[in-house]
C-alpha cells in the first residue's frame, strides 16, 4: 500500500503544520538517562505521529422519490493524546430531484481524556444548495467521541452557529461480527436543536431519528463494500416544517456503497 502510505504522509504533512500551531509544545523530557542526553543520542524509542483517513460511507441511496449519493468521512493525524480531525458528511441528489447539502464539515482538535474518550473542539461549515436559496453557516463545535461500554462507537457534538443558534447531535454504531469478515452494522443518530432555524428546515426540539443497517464484507480491513437500508424520520416542529414544504417526514432508502480507509 505504498500509494496509501504516500497519501497519508502528504495529508499528514499538511496537518502536522496545523497540529504544531495548535498543540502546546510537549516537554522534551523522556526516559533517557542524562548520560545519553548529554551525548546527544536519539532516544531508543519515541512517539511517531500517525494518521488515518476513513471514508465511512460512500454510498448510493435509492429512495421512493429521489436517489442520492452520500458521503461521510473522518480523518485524523497526530499522536496518542493530541490529534487533528477533519470530519464531514454530505449528500447530493442525483435522481428524482436536485440539490444537496454539506451537512457538516468540521476541523477539530481532539484530546484523549480517558482510555476510551476524546474531547474535540473546533470549527465547521454547513451548506444547503439548490433548488431555491443556498443557505450556509459557520459554527463552533465541542464534541465527545469514543468507545462506550459494550463497544458502541459514539460521536456526539454540540454546535453553535455564527448567529448564536445551537444544536446537538448524537450518533452511535455497533459492529456485529457475523463472521470474521462479514459485519452487520446498526446505526442510530438523532439531532436536537435549541433554536429554530427556518432556512435550514430546523425546528426546535428533537429534529429527527436516523436508523441504518449496513452489511459489509471486509475484502481486506481497508476495503469493505456493503449493502444496507436507512430510515430517516423527521419529528416535531421539524416534521411540521417539512410537511408545509410538501415533503415527506419519513425517508426510507436502500443503500449500496463502500467503506474504506487509507
Amino acid at each position, binding site marked *: *500500500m505504498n500509494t496509501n*502510505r504516500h497519501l497519508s504522509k502528504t495529508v499528514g504533512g499538511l496537518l502536522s503544520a496545523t497540529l504544531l500551531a495548535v498543540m502546546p509544545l510537549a516537554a522534551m*523530557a*523522556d*526516559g*533517557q*538517562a*542524562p*548520560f*545519553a542526553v548529554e*551525548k546527544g*543520542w*536519539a*532516544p*531508543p*524509542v*519515541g*512517539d511517531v505521529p*500517525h*494518521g*488515518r483517513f476513513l471514508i465511512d460511507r460512500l454510498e448510493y441511496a435509492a429512495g421512493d422519490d429521489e436517489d442520492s449519493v452520500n458521503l461521510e468521512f473522518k480523518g485524523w493525524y497526530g499522536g*496518542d*493524546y493530541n490529534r487533528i480531525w477533519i470530519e464531514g458528511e454530505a449528500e447530493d441528489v442525483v435522481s428524482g430531484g436536485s440539490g444537496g447539502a454539506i451537512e457538516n464539515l468540521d476541523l477539530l482538535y481532539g484530546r*484523549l*481524556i*480517558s*482510555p*476510551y474518550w476524546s474531547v474535540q473542539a473546533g470549527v465547521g461549515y454547513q451548506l444547503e444548495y439548490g433548488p431555491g436559496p443556498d443557505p450556509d453557516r459557520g459554527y463552533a463545535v465541542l464534541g465527545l467521541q469514543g*468507545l462506550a*461500554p*459494550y*463497544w458502541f462507537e459514539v460521536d456526539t457534538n454540540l454546535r453553535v452557529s455564527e448567529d448564536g443558534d445551537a444544536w446537538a447531535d448524537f450518533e452511535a454504531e455497533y459492529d*456485529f*461480527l*457475523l*463472521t*470474521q*469478515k462479514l459485519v452487520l452494522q446498526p446505526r442510530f443518530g438523532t439531532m436536537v436543536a435549541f433554536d429554530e432555524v427556518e432556512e435550514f428546515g430546523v425546528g426546535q426540539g428533537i429534529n429527527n431519528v436516523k436508523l441504518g443497517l449496513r452489511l459489509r464484507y471486509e475484502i481486506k*480491513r481497508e476495503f469493505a463494500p456493503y449493502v444496507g437500508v436507512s430510515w430517516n424520520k423527521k419529528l416535531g416542529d421539524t416534521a411540521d416544517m417539512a410537511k408545509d414544504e410538501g415533503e415527506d417526514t419519513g425517508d426510507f432508502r436502500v443503500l449500496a456503497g463502500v467503506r474504506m*480507509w487509507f
Partner: protein
Amino acid sequence: MDQYDTLTGKGHSRRRFLRNVTSMSVLAALYGYGGIRPALGWPQAGNHDAVREVDGDTDVFNLVIDRTPMEIDGKPANPITVNGTVPGPAIRMREGRNVRIRVQNKLDEWTSIHWHGILLPFQMDGVPGVTFEGIPPNDTFEYHYPLKQAGTYWYHSHSGLQEQLGHYGPLIVEPAEPEPFDYDRDYVVMLSDWTFEDPHDVFRNLKVAEGYYNYQKRTVEDLLEDIRQKGWSQTMRERAMWGEMRMSSRDLLDVTGSTYTYLINGRSPNDNWTGLFKPGEKIRLRVINGSAMSFFDVSVPGLKMTVVQVDGQNVEPVPVDEFRIGVAEIYDVIVEPDDQQAYTIFAEAMDRSGFAAGTLATEVGLTAEIPAPRPVPSRGMEAMGMDMGGMDMGNGDMEMGNGDMEMGDQSGGMDMGDQSSGMQGDQGMTGQSSHAGMVMNNDDAKGGMDMAMDKSGGKAPWPLADRDISHGPDDHGPGAAMVARNPGNRLNDPGIGLKSTPEHKVLVYDDLKALAPWPDPREPEREIELHLTGNMERYMWSFDGEKFSEVDGPIQFHHGERLRLILVNDTMMDHPIHLHGMWMELENQHGDLRPRKHTISVKPGEMVSARITADAPGHWAFHCHLLYHMKAGMFRVVSVA
C-alpha cells in the same frame, strides 16, 4: 564414512571440537546434500555457525549486516541478514575467554547488535540511545567483552524494527566446566515470525486500526455456541462483563498468522528444517524464541522433552510434553528419539493462528505428522486480574484433595465453576496466601488453599501474598485501559489455551528450580513495583501508564543493592519483560533455588516478583520484548549507580 560424520558442524558433536571450519565449505557440502538453493539462508539440515578466529585469549568474529534477497517459504523476500543468512549464524563463544566481534553495517540505515542475556560492560550492550549511539551506515563497530557465563542466548538488532526483518541469531557460550547433563548432539531451534509486509506498515496498522490482524474475534456463531453450552444467563453475564470493560477475550496476540509465516531456523514448515539423529542418541535442542511478537507452544509429539536450562541457566531437569516460550525466552531441552524415523518439532502460535514446524529425522527428506490445529482459546475472568489468580480452572495440577492440606476456611468460594463469585473479590481463592506453607490452618479467610502446592514437599512462601498494590491516583491515566484489581499468583498456570494433565505435562514457572543457590543470599532491601499497562484502542503500551516519551529520566538502582522487582500485569496481553545487564531471580515456590531469567513472561492478571542484585554499573534497557509494544513506549532505562 558414516553419513553422520559428514554432518559435523551442523549437529554439534559435543565430544568433537571441530572449530574454525569455514562455514562456507560446510554449507556447500550441505547444499549438495540437501539439494536446496543457498538463497534460503540456513541449510535444511543442521545448524550454521559463524567462523571463529582465535587471537590469544580472545575469540574473534566478523559479522556483516546487509540486505540479502532470498526466498522465505518459497516467496521472494528482502530480509536484513547477518553474514547473509536469516537467522544470522550461530556464534559460539567460550566461557572464561574474551570475545571481539567486528560488526560491519552495510545497510543504508543505522543498526546495532544486542547480546541478549549476556552480562557485560554496559557500553557493549548494543542499545542505541542507551548504551551507545549505534552503528552508522558503512561503518564498523567493535564489541569486546569477557564471557563470565555459559549457556544458550541470542543476539539481535536493537534499532527500530530491524528485528522483524531478520536481524537476529543464536549465541552459544560453551561452558568452562562440564554441564550437569549429557547429550550426543545439539541443535539450535530458533523460532521466529516473518512478514512480507514492511514492519512500519504493521506498526501503523496496529496503531490506527485496533484488531487489524485478529481474524479470530468472537462472532455470532461463538455467541450461539456459548448459549448452547453455558445457557443464556451465564453467557449474557460473561458477555456483559467483557462488554463493560470493552475487552476482547480473543485478544491473544496482536500480530497473527494472518500476516506471519512462522519459521524454525529461517525455514517455514514447507522448507522443513531437519535435525538429524541416530536412534538412541540424546539430542539437545536449544529452543530460542527470536520472534518479534509471537509466543509459541513447543512440543515434539511422541517424545518427552527434559528441560535442562532456561534462559541459559541450569535447572533441575523437568520432563515435559509441552512448554510455552515467550518472546526472547530460551529453553534447552533434551530429547531421546528412539525407534521412529522422524518426529515433528512443533511450535504452535499461542493464538493458534499458525505454527512453525521442523523435523528430527534419521535422514533429510523425512517428515512426521503435523498435529491437528487446536481450537482458539478465549481468555477467562482470571485475565482481568479479578481474583482467579493462581486458580486456573483448567489446570490439572490443581489438587484440591491433597490430604496434607488443611483448610482453615472453606467458605471462601469452593464453587469455582461460578464465575460470578470470582468477581466479588474473594481473596480466599486467589492462591495469593501461601505464606503458611504446607499446612494452612489459620482462621483468616485469606488462608485459602495453596493451589501451587509442591507435591514433593515444602514450598517457599510467595512474597507477594496479601500485598496491597497501588494503581496510582488515576488508575494509570488514559494510557491504561484497565487495571487488575486483584492480581494473583499464576506461576502454576501454564497459560491460556494450555492444560497440564498427568498424560500431557505442560511446563509452568513453578516447575523451574535452580541447581544451587545464586551467589547473593541477601533478602531484598528495597522493592520496586511496576505495572504493565496499555490501551489497545490507541495501541499505547507503557509501564505505570506512562510511555517512554512521558517519563522523566531512568529508573534508579543503587549500585550493590539487593532489590525485589514486582511486575503487575494490568493488561489483557502476556508480556515478556526483559532486563538487560542483570539477572532476575524469579521468586517462585523454590525459595533459594529460584530460577534465574533474563526475560520473564507475565500473564494477564498476574503479579510476579524477581530478586535483582544491582551489580552492573551503567545504563540498561528494560522493556517488553514484544517488538511493537517496545516501539509503542513500553520501555524504560535502568541506571545503576
